[in-house]
């Protein structure tokens, strides 16, 4: 049985045991509380989109290694420890065994269960073969303290596109380019949607539901695959639930939305930030207006606009705390009065700051 407890900065430093460890620590995490019993509040950490890139031999892109290393170190030093970690996909850059193995080695420093979501960069070299062998199933469900979780593989695409390329490497390279005019939209696909429908028929509509996916299960901007082609079919299955949140990766930015009863929130990337689609002025996009943008990245700071997050789940509602390494941390939580996620500091336009203006 856990006791609910909040930690002060002082006791946190004592627990962390040493200045060296403490100096690495995001002290904004001190508000973490944990649950008393089943169905109570609990916390899990989210690390996503590390894009580990194998250069050759023992060489990997240092910048991206540093991102996941920092996230893993900080999650390791969270106290109390989160109940588990969600890895949000795109552990690898080009789906290579070396990259997936390298990522698993990095994540092995976490002494916590990890729930994996697959991203397109992990998938399109061997269509998820190595991932399923070494890392995780592609879609599955689990329960935790009264909350039902479903992980989906949302980065599938049309068969004719998959078969179009002469080699697996070429297919992977094509899918790896975000702004590829020859790309193909993500989808969950009929097989999974059928599975999800049958699976959810056994889950009571009062049960809090969390869906974990790589791409957003709504439509933001097709040219960059901030998009899932059959999102509406998935949403139709989620709509009857009173408390349902989709958490996703891929977009490398703070992004949140509400469609009917369904809340959406994105994870940060540990590797690099992506611009908001509104900044591409040649094509229209559907970026949710409620999202208060994260700060524009300053390219001169390697870790700017990257980071990780932890999610507090209380009474089935999500509060996501973004630990941003070079920026003030942010919290986006579901507002019971407004019935959608809000940023607890910046939601009011009068509180917003110039770097949040993307143009």
């Amino acid at each position, binding site marked *: 049985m856990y006791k609910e407890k909040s930690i002060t900065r002082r006791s946190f430093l004592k627990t962390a045991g040493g200045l060296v460890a403490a100096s690495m620590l995001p002290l904004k995490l001190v508000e973490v509380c944990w649950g008393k019993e089943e169905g109570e509040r609990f916390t899990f950490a989210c690390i996503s989109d590390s*894009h580990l*890139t194998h*250069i050759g031999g023992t*060489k990997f*892109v*240092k*910048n991206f290694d540093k991102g996941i290393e920092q996230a893993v170190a900080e999650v390791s030093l969270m106290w109390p420890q989160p109940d588990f970690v969600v890895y949000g996909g795109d552990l690898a*850059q080009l789906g290579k065994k070396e990259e997936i193995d390298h990522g698993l080695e990095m994540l092995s420093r976490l002494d916590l269960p990890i729930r994996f979501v697959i991203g397109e960069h992990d998938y399109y070299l061997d269509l998820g073969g190595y991932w399923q062998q070494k890392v995780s199933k592609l879609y599955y469900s689990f329960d935790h303290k009264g909350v039902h979780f479903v992980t989906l593989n949302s980065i599938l695409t049309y068969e004719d596109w998959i078969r179009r390329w002469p080699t697996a490497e070429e297919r992977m390279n094509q899918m790896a*380019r*975000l*702004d590829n005019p020859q790309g193909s939209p993500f989808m969950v696909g009929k097989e999974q949607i059928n599975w999800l429908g049958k699976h959810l028929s056994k889950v009571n509509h009062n049960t809090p539901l969390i869906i974990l996916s790589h791409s957003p299960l709504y439509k933001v901007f097709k*040219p*960059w695959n901030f998009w899932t082609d059959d999102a509406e079919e998935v949403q139709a299955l989620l709509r009857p639930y009173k408390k349902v949140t989709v958490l996703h990766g891929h977009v490398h930015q703070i992004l949140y939305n509400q469609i009917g009863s369904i809340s959406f929130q994105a994870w940060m990337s540990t590797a*690099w*930030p*992506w*611009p908001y689609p509104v*900044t*591409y*002025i*040649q094509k229209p996009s559907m970026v949710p207006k409620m999202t208060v943008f994260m700060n*524009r*990245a*300053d*390219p*001169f700071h*390697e870790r700017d606009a990257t980071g990780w997050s932890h999610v507090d789940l209380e009474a089935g509602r999500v509060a996501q705390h973004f630990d941003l390494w070079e920026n003030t941390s942010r919290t986006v939580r579901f507002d019971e009065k407004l019935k959608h996620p809000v940023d607890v500091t910046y939601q009011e336009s009068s509180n917003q700051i*110039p770097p949040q203006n*993307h*143009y």
Partner: protein
Amino acid sequence: MRYKVILPIGLVVILAAGIISGLRADEFKEEDLKKWQAAFMDVVTEGEKLFHSALGSNKVSCDMCHPNATNTHPETYPKFHKTLGKVATLRDVINWCIENPLEGKPLALDDPKMIALEAYITWERRGKPLDPGKH
């Protein structure tokens, strides 16, 4: 004798007319516009290829952070850069990216590759009014 005078004068007049016509205000046609636009777009296409290729030593490419060259803001240059501590051009910052995230060697500022990169970045931002100095 008269011929000896008239002939050189005639030649000078013809030559001068040729030169003057060459100096006249440019009169170009639709075909010229198409030709020049095609020449420009060839450089844009080359820039797009470079922008999506590993220009440095570590397989990282420009588009990984800047899909469709977004967040490059070519219309705001020259502008003051905090870290460089001076007013910089877009080409200075392209080189900064090549040297740092891409771990490569900087291009000469008039390198055809640099011009191609600038052409692509600017093309993706076409229609945006100039706003030099903006942050």
